[in-house]
């Protein structure tokens, strides 16, 4: 198969970027898009040019590191699929393929197609965990979890933190990501003690980072490689509102009655 690639090239965070055209010939339909880019990079290196910077790790759709906007859709045209799982047979022979980074104010471009997504890490660090004593694990059956709840928690826990939700959103909002992270812990008994604090802290960090506010366009849900539902955004709203209205704010004095 033959393609015309138009790829975003940008030297560094502060330098201007632009699309550069690269013709690709004799691409196997069984190649993944990233393998095709690997091939292109070998060619560029052989020609003495700077290879295209892009990220990948597992290449099996579980780590969330790969993320490119392909022909205007984060992760490309195939639903429920990460960039690394997108194969060239999904494209038409002779097609022009435009590849851009995941764009958002909170995801500044580092170089070419690589963006800095550490804002997500800071949101997780603000509350996306449970506090548990270390030592030997407790007996598994000592905390009953209904099948229904564990299924829903796992639906939320599927989120791989790739950032496609933010990249697709007209508002650069991270609410699908944060909603999934708040929900997957908040749906399980282990997550209950810190549930409302977690919601308040993670939302506060999300706002501090400068992510936008959801306008319920549903674009994030439609591009999410893991099909995270808008329902989790609504759930985050409920947990957050409850934390604001019902939870007693901390006095700052520590302990006390």
């Amino acid at each position, binding site marked *: 198969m033959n393609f015309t690639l138009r790829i*975003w090239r940008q030297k560094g965070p502060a330098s201007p970027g632009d699309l550069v055209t690269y013709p690709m010939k004799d691409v196997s339909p069984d190649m993944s898009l990233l393998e095709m880019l690997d091939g292109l990079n070998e060619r560029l290196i052989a020609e003495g040019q700077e290879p295209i910077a892009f990220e990948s790790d597992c290449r099996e759709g579980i780590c969330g590191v790969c993320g490119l906007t392909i022909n205007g*859709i984060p992760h490309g045209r195939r639903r429920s699929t990460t960039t690394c799982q997108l194969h060239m047979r999904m494209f038409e022979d002779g097609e022009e393929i435009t590849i851009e980074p995941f*764009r958002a104010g909170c995801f500044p471009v580092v170089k070419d197609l690589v963006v800095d997504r550490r804002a997500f890490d800071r949101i997780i660090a603000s509350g996306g965990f449970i506090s548990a004593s270390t030592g030997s694990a407790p007996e598994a059956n000592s905390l009953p979890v209904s099948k229904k709840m564990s299924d829903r928690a796992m639906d939320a826990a599927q989120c791989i933190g790739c950032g496609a939700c933010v990249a*697709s959103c*007209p*508002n650069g909002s991270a609410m699908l990501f944060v909603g999934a992270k708040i929900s997957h812990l908040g749906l399980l008994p282990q997550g209950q003690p810190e549930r409302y604090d977690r919601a308040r802290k993670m939302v506060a960090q999300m706002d501090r980072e400068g992510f936008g*506010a959801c306008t319920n366009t*549903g*674009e994030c849900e439609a591009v999410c490689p893991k099909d995270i539902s808008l329902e989790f955004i609504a759930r985050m709203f409920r947990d957050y*509102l409850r934390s604001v209205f019902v939870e007693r704010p901390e006095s700052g004095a520590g302990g006390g009655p």
Partner: protein
Amino acid sequence: MTWLRSLWQSTIGKKVVMAVTGLILFGFVIGHLLGNMQVLLPDGARRINHYSRFLHENAGLLWGARATLLIALILHLITSLQLTLRNRKARPEPYRVKRWREASYASRTMMLSGPIIFFYIVYHLAHLTTGQAHPDFNPDDVYRNLVIGFGVWWASGAYIVAQILIAMHISHGAWSMFQSVGLNHPLYTPPLKMLARVLAIGIAAGYISIPVAVMTGLVT
């Protein structure tokens, strides 16, 4: 009151304000339509003037509703502007190629339909409530104001265009306001989205029928 401040400062709190004020405005749009549709009933002239007199005789009710609507509109406007500024900053660089998979045109243009609706509201009040924008206004004869007002083709045209924009705004807003207060359910949300669209079209059709009835001579 720290809880109120932290709520107001958060994106989620502002979305809740948008949703609640949107619901108030939405309720008005429906109530106002039901009141106005009396024009099309037999004996419409008497009915609408009677309705208008009823409202004016109950000044507490009328001014209570007006104050609620004004506060709701102002809050809706302030939060929409604040959130939009924030959202623009969160999405500074556009894609060279962008394709939408799900986001409807109406959902992406709330900040276009909304402000146009705002200017329409100002015009509408000056046209049929206070009369400055009306060629021959009589505060005691709503029916005559309608017939004369909509006899001007461009005035009717402005109303019709505004109603189409309101329909777009509502087709997204009427389900979005549920999501924005945390209500979403896989069983109820899809029919709710459908209902929002049907309601939006029905509301616009109802409102548009009034200037159309005047222009076609059904209401004289």
